[in-house]
């Protein structure tokens, strides 16, 4: 009775590569996968290694998955050197994904920083495809500079959607930049999103999460109503290799989506 | 001797000459010692000094950058500090060296391996060939009161005798015996973490672009790790013996270090940790270094 090798990846062919920013590429893979928005997969570049990336397109949007990869380390550099038609190994999907049921008929506030928009895009498109299930949608997307903003071509679609407001911000003023300027926590204080009957979903670098949480609490969001997808170094994705834990919770198995109440005393 | 050490520590802390004193305190098993940092006078009572104070404490100095520190040090520890000073890792007037006259420390590894409770253990074999029991540099010296701290009787015996014995073996014998040793290495890197000379913030072994020491199953990774570790200590190792003591699987690391030390002494006449102003061995050269091995 041979048990399945849980580390054996499935092969997936790269069908499309889009250069979002100088160091971020979005890979479209031909692979049939059943997943929820907010889950992630382990990319295996043979000969280089494995790395976890969240699935950034919505399960309602056609076959195949899309992942956005920022070039930082060994595996991401190797990934950026691949081109269309190459094969990568995919393991997953792992993680709990966003609790879409208890987001129904609530206002949703998306707060994204840089590449943090990738997991949120999956949920944003999912909500837009089922627009009537949700009340108002507010998207606050910040980045260091304008050419660090990802998925630029989807912004017009999001803005035209029903009862949806999109706020783009960059850290410091740039020429021919018409939208807002300032770090995400300051922008949140300016636009003061309504907190009754609404949920905030935050994803971005640790520094942004650290300073956004107090602002949201001040705006009246209760800790249970703030969701965040955390990210740590992961190897197995199944809660065994023992490195991605925040307190007793493993980010890969019990997360990556947590309510702020769950992790508040650890994300000090 | 212990009282003298404690009073010295209290005095240093009271007069704010140092912010903390790094020393030894009794470990939980009541016999061995454990490194400790003393930050206030009351804590100075915890300091001890006896043959169980084996560890080389100057590895902890790098945790307290740019702070004035007192440190309890034996002769071999001070030689390690001399090398650190010559490599600009340590600033001489940042450290107040409480020199201890030492007449040999216990062979902590044999006590650990043979399960004895360590009371009747002979002194470590690095002490058997120790040339001087008084540190080369110190700010204050605490003398050994009991019998005159005799320099171990076979100090003049050839220190590299075991190395010469190993060199005499045939090539295949050497290859087989070292492969069996390195096969057991579990890459816990205790030899690196315990060594005062290993202070790199990111070690070569932790890099993965490229992976220098393979982690795959075979022996190649362990072999190249141990050779690279020894080469990084060429002309810097002062034979404090911590690496061999810390190695859980008992690889004779000191034999490798002393082989390099012997070659350097015979070929280039250079000895580590003798002079604070000496230039590091591999950072200098001599016009007529031997080059018989070069075609």
């Amino acid at each position, binding site marked *: 009775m041979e048990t399945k090798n849980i580390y054996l990846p499935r092969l997936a062919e790269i069908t499309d590569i889009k250069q979002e920013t100088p160091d971020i590429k979005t890979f479209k893979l031909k692979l049939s996968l059943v997943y929820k928005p907010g889950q992630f997969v382990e990319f295996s570049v043979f000969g280089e290694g494995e790395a976890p990336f969240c699935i950034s397109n919505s399960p309602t949007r056609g076959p195949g998955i899309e992942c956005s990869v920022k070039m930082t380390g060994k595996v991401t550099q190797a990934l950026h050197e691949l081109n269309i038609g190459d094969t990568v190994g995919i393991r997953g999907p792992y993680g709990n994904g966003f609790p879409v049921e208890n987001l129904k008929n609530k206002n949703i506030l998306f707060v994204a920083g840089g590449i943090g928009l990738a997991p949120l895009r999956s949920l944003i498109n999912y909500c837009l495809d089922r627009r009537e299930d949700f009340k108002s949608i507010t998207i606050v997307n910040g980045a260091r500079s304008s050419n660090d903003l990802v998925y630029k071509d989807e912004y017009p679609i999001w803005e035209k959607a029903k009862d949806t407001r999109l706020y783009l911000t960059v850290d410091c003023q740039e020429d021919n930049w018409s939208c807002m300027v300032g770090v995400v926590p300051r922008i949140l204080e300016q636009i003061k999103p309504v907190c009754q009957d609404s949920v905030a979903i935050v994803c971005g670098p640790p520094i942004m999460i650290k300073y956004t949480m107090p602002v949201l609490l001040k705006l009246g969001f209760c800790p249970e109503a703030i969701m965040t997808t955390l990210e740590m170094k992961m190897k197995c994705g199944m809660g065994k290799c023992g490195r991605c834990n925040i307190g007793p919770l493993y980010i890969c198995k019990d997360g990556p989506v947590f309510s702020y109440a769950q992790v508040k005393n650890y994300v000090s | 001797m212990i009282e003298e050490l404690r009073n010295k520590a209290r005095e240093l802390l009271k007069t704010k000459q140092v912010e903390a004193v790094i020393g030894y305190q009794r470990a939980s098993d009541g016999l061995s010692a454990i490194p400790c940092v003393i930050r206030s006078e009351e804590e100075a009572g915890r300091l001890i000094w006896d043959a169980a104070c084996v560890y080389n404490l100057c590895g902890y100095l790098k945790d307290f950058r740019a702070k004035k520190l007192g440190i309890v040090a034996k002769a071999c520890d001070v030689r390690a500090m001399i090398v650190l000073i010559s490599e600009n890792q340590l600033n001489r007037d940042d450290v107040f060296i409480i020199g201890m006259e030492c007449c040999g420390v216990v062979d902590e590894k044999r006590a650990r391996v043979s399960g004895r409770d360590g009371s009747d253990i002979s002194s470590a074999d690095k002490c058997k060939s120790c040339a001087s029991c008084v540190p080369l540099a110190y700010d204050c010296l605490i003398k050994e009161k009991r019998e005159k701290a005799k320099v171990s009787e076979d100090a003049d015996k050839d220190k590299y005798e075991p190395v010469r014995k190993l060199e005499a073996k045939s090539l295949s014998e050497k290859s087989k015996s070292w492969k069996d040793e390195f096969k057991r290495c579990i890459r816990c890197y205790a030899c690196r973490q315990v060594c005062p000379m290993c202070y790199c913030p990111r070690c070569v072994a932790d890099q993965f672009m490229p992976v220098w020491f393979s982690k795959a199953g075979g022996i190649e990774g362990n072999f190249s790790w141990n*050779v690279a570790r020894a080469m990084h200590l060429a002309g810097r190792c002062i034979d404090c013996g911590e690496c061999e003591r810390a190695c859980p699987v008992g690889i004779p690391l000191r034999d490798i270090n002393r082989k390099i030390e012997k070659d350097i002494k015979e070929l280039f006449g250079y000895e580590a940790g003798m002079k604070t102003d000496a230039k590091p061995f591999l*950072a200098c050269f001599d*016009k007529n270094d031997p080059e018989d091995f070069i075609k």
Partner: protein
Amino acid sequence: MINPRTQELKNSRAESWEPKIAAFLCNWCSYAGADLAGTSRREYPPNIRIIRLPCSGRVNPLFVLKCLMDGADGVLIAGCHTGDCHYSEGNYYARRRFAILKKLFEFLGIDPRRFQMAWVSASEGDKWVKVVKELVEEIKKAGPILAKS
């Protein structure tokens, strides 16, 4: 237990074994010397894989180790004669460094013929050919590195 990756290498090369030798050549002298041997149509065995480096002082013992552990049967380091190094002291440092490494390899059971050094100046095309021929002969006698490890 032999590393499975190098085990594969071992089987594939058991029959017609041709030694693979990595050679680190200093750009100013040895590389020019090897180039001169080439332009003067001198023949020498093709087992050498030349890696060009600015100076013999640039060779890190890790390079030599990684070559030997990943299956190279021999490593050669060639540089300028002492005194005419382009960077004036690179080869002095290298000389000291590899005097220690060579003795350490011998102590740990690696055949000393597998790791050799040579000073080859830009004008010594024929010395380069002689060095390579002798080296390949010795490595052939020493046999594949995997057989022993």
